């Protein structure tokens, strides 16, 4: 899970490793993911989100691809 300066840099990185480029995430989306995952992490009630909640978190920031599904058969 890395930062890249541009889409071209992602393409070059993937090409150099012979891997398929994955969905790109903008910084504002990444912040929403970070808040959803970690904003309550220091609280007693904090817990890992379950599969359905994970899907809702990603869908809420516009990431609906099966790549983000924690139980996707094609990736399991």
């Amino acid at each position, binding site marked *: *899970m*890395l*930062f*890249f*300066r*541009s*889409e071209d*840099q*992602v393409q*070059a*990185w*993937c090409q*150099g490793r012979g*891997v398929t*480029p*994955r969905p*790109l*995430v*903008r*910084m*504002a*989306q*990444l*912040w929403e*993911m*970070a*808040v959803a*995952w*970690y*904003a309550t*992490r*220091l609280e*007693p009630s904090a817990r*890992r989100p379950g599969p359905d909640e*994970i899907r809702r978190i*990603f869908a809420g920031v516009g990431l609906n691809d*099966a*790549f*983000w*599904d*924690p*139980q*996707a058969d094609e*990736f*399991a």
Partner: protein
Amino acid sequence: MDFDTQVKLTVYHHFASTARAPQVAHVAAQLGCSLEDVRQAYARLRANRVLLLEPDGCTIRMAPPFSGVPTQHRVEVGPQTYFANCAWDALGVPAALHREAVVHSRCGQSGAPLRLHVGTTGPESSTWLFHCLVPAAQWWVDLVFT
């Protein structure tokens, strides 16, 4: 509050206040329990994907978003410098602490430096991107690689 939650919170609050992983002896002293009690709790927390441990079973490698080892993702919060496990966790540190931060990282391809101010409501405008190679269904197969 159950014992594992107490251990987890002790670990997390130590990371938050010191930017480093606690020793098992520190956690045991804080909770008034044995070292073995803490080790067993660590193993359960690992099984529940809360902590990632080194092979010794008592050294914390990751308590996401915090890293127990130096990484390329540094997060400055006031006088403290935290290490994050990945780009996502680099934003996770200020999100968890509810504090302003400056994230220092680099482009995965070119190595160009990233310096990103993150306020309590989000990062400054940026055209940088986040890319994750490993699908969500496989993240915990090898979390260090992920």
